[in-house]
């Protein structure tokens, strides 16, 4: 069975500080991977997607970047956090050729 982990579970960071969030999926080779952001009380917005190692496409510009250093790993980062970056960050995966996406447990980020 596939399992998806995200780290850290929660972060409290200062404006202007760097950020790195991670996602690992086990039990599935070559998944499509996605990053989503959910503002408090808001809907889910897709940020990035990746279909293979080393290749990431941006969907929405939020002064964030993403990388896929390994087949099972997806990283979200920024060098300078903004207050507007606060929210719930979710990693998701899908099988090649399938449309449904499955979400990880998420990381709750608070920027002060």
């Amino acid at each position, binding site marked *: 069975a596939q399992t998806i982990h995200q780290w850290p579970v929660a972060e409290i960071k200062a404006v202007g500080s760097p950020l790195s969030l991670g996602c690992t999926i086990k039990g599935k080779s070559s998944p499509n991977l996605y990053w989503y952001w959910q503002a408090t009380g808001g*809907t*889910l917005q*897709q940020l990035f997607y990746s279909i293979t190692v080393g290749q990431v496409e941006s969907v929405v510009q939020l002064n964030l970047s993403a990388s896929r250093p390994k087949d099972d790993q997806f990283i979200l980062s920024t060098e300078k956090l903004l207050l507007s970056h606060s929210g719930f960050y979710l990693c998701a995966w899908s099988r090649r050729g399938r449309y449904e996406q499955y979400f990880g447990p998420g990381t709750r980020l608070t920027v002060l």
Partner: protein
Amino acid sequence: GDSVTQTEGLVTLTEGLPVMLNCTYQTAYSTFLFWYVQHLNEAPKLLLKSSTDNKRTEHQGFHATLHKSSSSFHLQKSSAQLSDSALYYCALRIASSSFSKLVFGQGTSLSVVP
């Protein structure tokens, strides 16, 4: 452009009554819709996915039917339970893209009370 509309922000129901959460969509491409459920402080979980036109799909007591004629994929359940209280999102897969992009509606918060 492609979009999903959930008209109700909050639905409050008494336990045992039927549930119906509305979802309409707009797309110029082939249609794939999903319902996700998100309990408080948890990640969204896939609840249902659409099948062919006018075919009902069911899972965990919930069901939905894709109606292309009315561009709808409403979520229904015959009898609400307290544990159904959660946030429900309808999502549309954008078929024009080379990847699986999902566009989510604004969500409907379902509150089931005794």
